[in-house]
């Protein structure tokens, strides 16, 4: 029983990690209908910047809370600038281009960002310092560390904040208007360009937070960390229904749970034939099964078919 509970906790933590990144994907997609494939790289840059700031400040004798705050601020700022320029340089000129053109620039951007990070921070893995106490809480034989509790909380807060932003504020209304119909929104006095820019900036800031949280959890940073993370988060966003904030959260948690329960139990259930090496296969099978019955994801809206 304690093992089962532990697997659930593992799944929730892993799932929250996916959710945090998936929220960024989904936000951009919801408004532009564009998959920002370079989102994972922004997460990586956020983690890297934070790492450098922490390394720089640790020796100076500041309180840990202050260091954390400064590194968070700085990495958010760097990522926001990055997100803004990315949109201006690589996506905006292609807004009316064929659908796959921005996909290619996104891939190009990913390669460029990865390479720059490799040149800047080196090829090797870096240890991400312990920011919080490493204390853990024991619940009925299962263990959860404080960082993990914080991760789950941050993911939920992020989603809640975004929901409020999108549904309760003026900016949110503008966002939804642009998502619905950019030209009509423009006629109503919405500056769609700046709304899209803000979306990117906001998404990048979230990516920075996600990057720091994820690195704090695993304690390790690498210039290629964004690629796999981005892929999994994208899968999670699609599972939940891309473009839907609650869907991104749900998809992330579900993907995390499938992975941990799949890896933990299917091996024994299938007599060792299908072990944890098929972890990703389970995840994709569930995804395909869900999409067969709900072609726009779990919480995705049933969009009237348009040409």
């Amino acid at each position, binding site marked *: 029983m304690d093992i089962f509970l532990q697997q659930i906790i593992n799944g929730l933590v892993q799932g929250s990690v996916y959710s945090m990144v998936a929220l960024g994907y989904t936000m951009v997609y919801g408004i532009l209908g564009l998959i920002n494939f370079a989102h994972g790289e922004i997460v990586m840059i956020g983690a890297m910047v934070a790492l450098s700031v922490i390394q720089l400040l640790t020796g100076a004798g500041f309180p840990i809370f202050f260091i954390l705050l400064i590194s968070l601020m700085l990495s958010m700022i760097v990522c926001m600038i990055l997100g803004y320029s990315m949109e201006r340089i690589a996506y905006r000129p292609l807004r009316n281009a064929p659908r796959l053109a921005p996909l290619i620039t996104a891939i190009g951007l990913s390669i460029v960002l990865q390479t720059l990070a490799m040149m800047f921070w080196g090829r090797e893995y870096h240890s991400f310092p312990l920011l919080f106490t490493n204390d853990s809480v024991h619940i009925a034989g299962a263990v959860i560390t404080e960082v993990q509790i914080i991760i789950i909380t941050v993911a939920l807060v992020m989603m809640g904040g975004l929901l409020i932003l999108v549904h309760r504020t003026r900016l949110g209304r503008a966002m939804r208007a642009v998502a619905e119909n950019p030209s009509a929104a423009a006629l109503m006095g919405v500056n769609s360009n700046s709304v899209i820019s803000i979306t990117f900036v906001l998404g990048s800031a979230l990516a920075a937070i996600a990057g720091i949280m994820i690195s704090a959890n695993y304690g390790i940073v690498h210039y290629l960390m964004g690629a796999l993370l981005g892929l999994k988060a994208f899968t999670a966003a699609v599972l939940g229904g891309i473009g839907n904030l609650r869907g991104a959260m749900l998809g992330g948690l579900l993907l995390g749970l499938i992975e941990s329960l799949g890896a933990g139990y299917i091996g024994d259930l299938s007599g060792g034939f299908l072990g944890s090496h098929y972890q*990703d296969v389970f995840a994709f099978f569930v995804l*395909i099964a869900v999409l067969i019955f709900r072609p726009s994801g779990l919480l995705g809206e049933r969009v009237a078919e348009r040409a």
Partner: protein
Amino acid sequence: MRNALKRFLIIDKRNAPNQKRLAWAAFAVLAIILLALPFAIDGLFGRGWVRVLDFALLYIMLALGLNIVVGYAGLLDLGYVAFFAVGAYCYALLGSPQFGIHLPFWIVLPLGALLACLFGILLGAPTLRLRGDYLAIVTLGFGEIIRIFLNNLNAPINITNGPQGISMIDSIHLGEFSLGRTQEIFGITFPAAHLHYYLFLIFTLLVIFVSLRLQDSRIGRAWAAIREDEIAASAMGINTRNIKLLAFAMGATFGGLAGGLFAGFQGFVSPESFGLTESIMILCMVVLGGMGNVGGVVLGGILLVVIPELTRHLAGTAQQALLGKTVIDPESLRMLMFGLALILIMLWRPAGLWPSSQRRRELIAPAPPSV
């Protein structure tokens, strides 16, 4: 073939007599260039570049296969490399010491293509209702599933030899004539890389020919119809299910064919050659070159194989020449240049370097609603 070439060169049929002679001349010149190419490249740049050329041809085949799915039928496929893998493993398992089976390549190659075709239908069937990005993620998952199975099917029964891969695969041979070693024909020495070039060239031309014929056929028009508007297409009496499955099957067949050739050429296959990056690379070729246009896709295939190799040379030497010392690691600079090239080409020509004429007309028309 000649007609195909005329289309390839976009020669107007209306000025028939003169143009006809011109087409023949162009055809002859092109044929000579293609035949002499490996020797010219070997002499000028070295044999490594002939190998690059061989891979370029393989990728052209792959890109043309994917072009049927993405370019013609408008179905975004991010797991295309799975079919390449199926073809390659089919060849490897039936022509290596793995099972001790050594079937000749003219049996194994079509078999691999057929198997890939079946997998294409297998992938197509559950995804018929999906659109756009949902389709993309499912195909991506499919590609990963195939790779994971190849990577893990060494236990409990050893089928694929798992991550170790299969080595000592038979070279492509007809009786005693093997493409795997240097041969002498009519007093001319043909090294292995050259021999493979000619074989790959034949298959590439075949794939180009089929692609061009398909484009103009009823099927090709049906694909265009579902690409532009699926509902309207089905209202026009097109069986969208069959026509979509056909696109997946045709694309997969070409992928399987290229896979078999790859296994025979390389002599070694392992799952790491069939990862997601490979699928993305092939997609880049199609989009960069010009979706739906055979010439553009061929160009995209050549460029994306040649640019990384070229930057590999430029990155080191250009720095030395310009700055007198190596400031940035050549390999970092190479990746940087490659990434930037992708971005810049796309910004400069959003529809691809050489878009299809139909696509270009669409671009001039007011932008469709972004969905």
